[in-house]
C-alpha cells in the first residue's frame, strides 16, 4: 500500500486557480478578475486605434467605461454599456459563469450561464473612475509576448503542472 492522499492544504502542487479557457480575442483582447474588479479592454468597432477600458467593481457594483484616451463612453446607461456587456460575456467564456459571479459578488440563479445574467444580478451603476490602471494592466499583458524564450531550466515550474485533462 501507499500512504493516503494529503488534504489540499498540505499539498505543494495543490491547484489553486483553474486555468483560463481559450476564447476568440478579436473583440475583447483582455479580460481579468483582478484588483477587486472584473476589468478589461474592448476593441472599438469603428476605430482600430481605439479601445475601451471597462470595469465592474465587486465591492459596490459601480462600473466604469472610457476610451484609452480617457474619453467617456457614449453608451452608458443604468446597468452598463455594450462594452461592459461584451466584457462580461468574454469573462464567462474565459473563467466560467460561477467564478465570474463569485468574484464580482453577483448572486446569479443556479442555472445562469451568461455574462448578461451576471450583469443583471449585479445591476451596475455608473461611477467614473480612472481607466488608466486597467489600460496599463493590458499593456503589461501584451508585453509578455515580447519577452524571450529560454532553454535554461526553470525548476520552480514543477510547482505549476499544466492541467486541464480533468476538471
Amino acid at each position, binding site marked *: 500500500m501507499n500512504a493516503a492522499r494529503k488534504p489540499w492544504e498540505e499539498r505543494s502542487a495543490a491547484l489553486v486557480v483553474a486555468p483560463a479557457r481559450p476564447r476568440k480575442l478579436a473583440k475583447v483582447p483582455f479580460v481579468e478578475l483582478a484588483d477587486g474588479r472584473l476589468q478589461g479592454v474592448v476593441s472599438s468597432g469603428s476605430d482600430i486605434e481605439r479601445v475601451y477600458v471597462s470595469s465592474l467593481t465587486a465591492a459596490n457594483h459601480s462600473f466604469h467605461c472610457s476610451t484609452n484616451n480617457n474619453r467617456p463612453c457614449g453608451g452608458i446607461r443604468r446597468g452598463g454599456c455594450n462594452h461592459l456587456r461584451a466584457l462580461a460575456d468574454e469573462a464567462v467564456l474565459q473563467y466560467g459563469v460561477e467564478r465570474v459571479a463569485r468574484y464580482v459578488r453577483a448572486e446569479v440563479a443556479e442555472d445562469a450561464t451568461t455574462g448578461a445574467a451576471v450583469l443583471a444580478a449585479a445591476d451596475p451603476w455608473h461611477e467614473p473612475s480612472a481607466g488608466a490602471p486597467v489600460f496599463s494592466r493590458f499593456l503589461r499583458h501584451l508585453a509578455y509576448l515580447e519577452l524571450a524564450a529560454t532553454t535554461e531550466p526553470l*525548476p520552480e515550474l514543477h510547482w505549476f503542472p*499544466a492541467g486541464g*485533462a480533468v476538471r
Partner: protein
Amino acid sequence: MRFDLLAAPVDGVSEAYEVVAGFDGALVGGLLRPGAEQIAALHALAAAVSGTPLAGRVAEAVDKTIAGSISDEHLAALVAARSALLGASHDALLARLDEAAGRGREPWPAAGLGSLTGADNLLAAARSWLSDLAIAGWRGIDHDLVSHADQAVQALLADLRLRRLGALLDGFAGELRACAPGATMPRVPVRRWADLWARAVLLAQPGALASTEVGTVSGRLLPLGVDLHEHPTAVQAQVHAVLETADGPRLVRASVSTPKVDTLVGSGVWQLLRGHSALLAAVTEQRAMDLTDMPVTAGGDLIWSDEHTKAGAPAEPFATARVQLAAASAAPVPPLERHPVRIAEPVLLEGYTAAADDDGVTLTLPGLTVEVDVERMHSAGPLTPALVAASTACIGLLRWDGHWTIQPLAVEAQVKRKTVAVHAGAWAGGAADAAGAKAEAAAADAAKVLRERAGRLLRR
C-alpha cells in the same frame, strides 16, 4: 524495480513535515504578532536545526520574530531552516527511490560560486515584497499588497539571468491576486504558498541565481517523454531522455520555456516553444537526436541549442525505456532545488493492474498501489486518464507530494484489441488530429490578435 520499498515510510520525513507545517501555519496569520501556537512552532523550527550550522542564526531569527523586530536577514534564516528540513526530506525520499529503482546517482560536485552583478536593487525589491507578505500573512493580503510586486516581476522576467525568480513570483502573485483579499478566502493553500514564498526568498538572496559551471556532453539522445509546466503567464516543456555517452547511458532533461498570456492554453502552447528547440519535433516524430558538445549543468539539465544537434534515427520511447532506462545513471540535484516537489524520476511500469473510480486512477504493482497524478495530466496532448486506466505499460515520472504518485508521460493500451502507444507530448512538434490542429489554429489566431494590438498600443 522494488516497488515494495516505496510502500514503507521514509525515516524522518513525517517529523520534518510536522515542523514545517507549524511554521507554514504561522504564515497564515503573518509573522508580525505571532500567538502562542505560532511561537511554539517557531521554537520547534529552531530546535529542529539546532544541531546544524544554521543553529545560531535561526535561534536569533526566532527570538527577533517573537519580539516583533523581524528583518530581511531573519526571514532568510527562517527560510533556510525550513528549506533545510525539506531538502533533507527530498534527499531521503530520492535515496529511497534510487534504491527501489536500482538507480545510480552522481554526487554533487564541489563547484565554485559564480557571480551575478547588477541585480542587487531588483533582488532587494523582491525581498522587500516577500517580507511584507510574511508580515501580513495570507489572511492579511489585499489587492494593493499583491500589486506591489508588479514592477519587480516585470523587470525580473526581462533579465534572463533572473527569469527563474521572475517566473516564480509571477505565478505566485497571480494566485494571490485571484484569491485576494485573504480575509475572505474560504480555504488557504497553506503548504503551497509557504513553498512558493520560501523558494522566492531563497532565490532573492544575493548570489543564489549566480551562474553555475556548465560542461558539455555528446552522444545519442533518446527521448522518453515530455513534462509540461504552466501557469497563466509561463509555460515550460521539459523533455526527459536517455543520453548514450561514451561513459554509458545518462538520464538528462532538456527544457524550453517562455512567458505567455493566460488565454494561450492547452495545445496552443506548443507553438510558442517549437521555434526554440528542434527536440519538440523529434519527440513527435519519435526520433533520436545526435548531440555534439551540448552544454549541460551538473544537475543533468541540457542547455539546449539546436546548433549542437543533428536529427537522428527513429527511436521509440518504450523501446528506450525497456532497454536503456534501468542502466541509466542519474544526475545529482542542485542544492537550491532540493525540495520534494522537484522529484520527477522517469520510470517504466509494467505488469500492473489499473483501476479507475471516482477518486481517480490507481496502478497496483507488486507491493505497492500507486495513485496516478491526474492533476498533472494536461489537455495539450492525446493522453487521458481513461487511457491510463486501460493501459498495460506506462512511462511516467515518480513524484512525491505527501505520498508517491505517478505522472504518466506515455502508456501502452489496448485499443480495439491492438496495443497502441499514446504519448502526453505527442503534439509537441505539431498536432496530428483534427481537434488538436483546430486548437492550434485558434491559439495562433489569438496570438496574432494580441501582437496586432501590441503593435498599435504598446509602442507609444
